[in-house]
């Protein structure tokens, strides 16, 4: 029997602490949409996505009403387009991005991920075409997200791809400069990209995934912060216990929604992604949650330790609540999407180097960080290389989503609106790494990749 206290506690989580399901993401395999011509392939893609995901948004809304749970996004992830398009022989994959955009619009979802390539060990011809197409594809579409996996613990780091992505990010910024380089907010460079991630912009459906699958991403930094407010001054054992309990409850909500969506849509349930995902709303910030540990401002000494412990305790609580946990599963620290991170970056307490250190102990990486427009492609590649090394050598996912905003410099900020938020332009180390980046080739896989 449920008691009133539990009911009221639950109501407060939804009303005051911003608990929500961040996303129900339907993964759709497009393997069977490969065709000898672009037109034929695009037709198959459109028809298949609309057939599978036509009821996704409606179903999400029904579940939301049944349980009184806000479900913020309904999204779609697809097989990396570099694989699907490889048979058509085209020299530009922008039409594929456009058809994804059209399908997303028809289905009513707000993002579709999978304009992607997996190049950790090297390029196929199709991967090259896809990567070259990214700037135009992102400029020509509204809902499409792109990602490129350039490194993995098993394969090492593809430094040719790291070099090329620096250039592609610059070109994407230029192609979308009218909107503050918004294209770069939809482009992620990965190490160890998960194949079942429901979160954008990095979602795609990996080659090992089923025909169609429902993955759910939870949220809830506000709930954990509220729980910590009740244990001020207590020792870390108490803090860990408190986070675990809150994470358990949050994850159970995710599991409930995922199971019900799976049943209603007759699509198998894949995973719950246990990520604390912030939004720019006050009270929904990971930075403020870290400050609740006892830090004056996020970014000061102690931040990495607090984040490590938070991330670990969330997983320990969440893993008990669902047997199928996957995706990124770690606290997100996107700067522009987190009110506390924005404040810490503006005050100078949070710097790029500290963010890099923080990514050693959480997912996902240097995320939604605006840098000066005159940052060189080589410097961007250098930042990517460091972040990829963190992921590759620590056997974890890391990512880079940098936004070099044309015409802006340190002290300015760029406004994306909505959940993408506002990004203060952050300073970067200007010493050159160009000779390092132009070496090319691959950084070999670390010794601990050899587990067999």
């Amino acid at each position, binding site marked *: 029997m*449920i008691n*009133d206290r*539990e*009911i*009221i506690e*639950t*109501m407060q989580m939804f*009303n005051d602490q911003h608990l929500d399901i961040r996303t129900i993401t339907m993964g759709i395999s497009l393997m069977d949409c490969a065709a000898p011509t672009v037109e034929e392939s695009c037709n198959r893609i459109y028809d298949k996505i609309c057939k599978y995901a036509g009821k996704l948004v409606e179903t999400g*809304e*029904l579940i939301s*009403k*049944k*349980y*009184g*749970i806000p479900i913020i996004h309904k999204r779609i992830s697809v097989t990396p387009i570099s694989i699907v398009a490889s048979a058509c022989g085209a020299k530009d994959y922008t039409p594929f991005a456009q058809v994804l955009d059209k399908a997303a619009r028809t289905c009513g979802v707000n993002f579709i991920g999978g304009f992607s390539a997996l190049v950790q060990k090297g390029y196929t011809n199709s991967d090259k075409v896809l990567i070259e197409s990214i700037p135009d594809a992102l400029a020509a579409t509204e809902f499409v997200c792109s990602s490129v996996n350039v490194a993995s613990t098993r394969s090492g780091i593809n430094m040719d791809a790291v070099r090329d992505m620096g250039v592609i990010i610059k070109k994407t910024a230029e192609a979308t400069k009218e909107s503050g380089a918004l294209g770069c907010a939809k482009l992620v460079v990965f190490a160890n990209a998960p194949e079942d991630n429901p979160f954008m912009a990095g979602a795609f459906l990996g080659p090992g995934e089923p025909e169609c699958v429902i993955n759910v991403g939870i949220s809830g930094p506000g709930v954990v912060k509220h729980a910590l407010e009740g244990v001020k001054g207590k020792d870390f054992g108490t803090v860990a216990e408190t986070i675990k309990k809150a994470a358990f*409850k949050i994850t*159970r*909500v995710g*599991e*409930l929604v995922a*199971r*019900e969506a799976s*049943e209603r849509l007759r699509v198998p349930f894949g995973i719950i992604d246990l990520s604390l995902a912030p939004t720019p709303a006050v009270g929904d910030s990971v930075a403020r949650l870290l400050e609740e540990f006892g830090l004056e401002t996020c970014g000061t000494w102690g931040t990495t330790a607090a984040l490590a412990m938070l991330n670990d305790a969330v997983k320990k609580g969440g893993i008990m609540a669902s047997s199928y946990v996957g995706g990124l599963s770690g606290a997100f620290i996107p700067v522009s999407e987190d009110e506390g991170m924005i404040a810490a970056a503006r005050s100078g307490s949070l710097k790029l180097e500290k963010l890099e250190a923080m990514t050693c102990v959480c997912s996902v990486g240097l995320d939604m960080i605006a840098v000066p427009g005159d940052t060189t492609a080589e410097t961007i590649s250098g930042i990517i290389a460091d972040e990829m090394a963190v992921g590759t050598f620590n056997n974890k996912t890391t990512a880079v989503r940098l936004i070099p905003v044309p015409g802006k410099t340190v002290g300015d900020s760029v406004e994306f609106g909505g959940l993408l938020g506002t990004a203060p332009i952050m300073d970067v180390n200007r010493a050159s790494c160009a000779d390092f980046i132009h070496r090319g080739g691959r950084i070999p896989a670390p010794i601990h990749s050899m587990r067999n």
Partner: protein
Amino acid sequence: MNQEKNTAVVTVLGRDRVGIIADVSRLLADYGINIKDISQTILDDIFTMVMMVDLKDVVIEESDISEKLGELGKKLGVQITIQHTGLFNAMHTI
């Protein structure tokens, strides 16, 4: 999802006034929703009413009930929500 009975929790949060229970129960009765249990308390100075209801004989779409209750809540100046009990069982029981 159908393992649990088709029951839901209706919560009313806000300032107390005459006739809240009457208005809410009339709306529920109109749609064939039976009230199994009802309790009210003042929590952090907020009037809180919790009703357990049975949706077995409900005569409208479940998703429409929350809208109807939301509209009534606006009229009365309180927040009224309905949530399937599956949510509370998932979150608070192992």
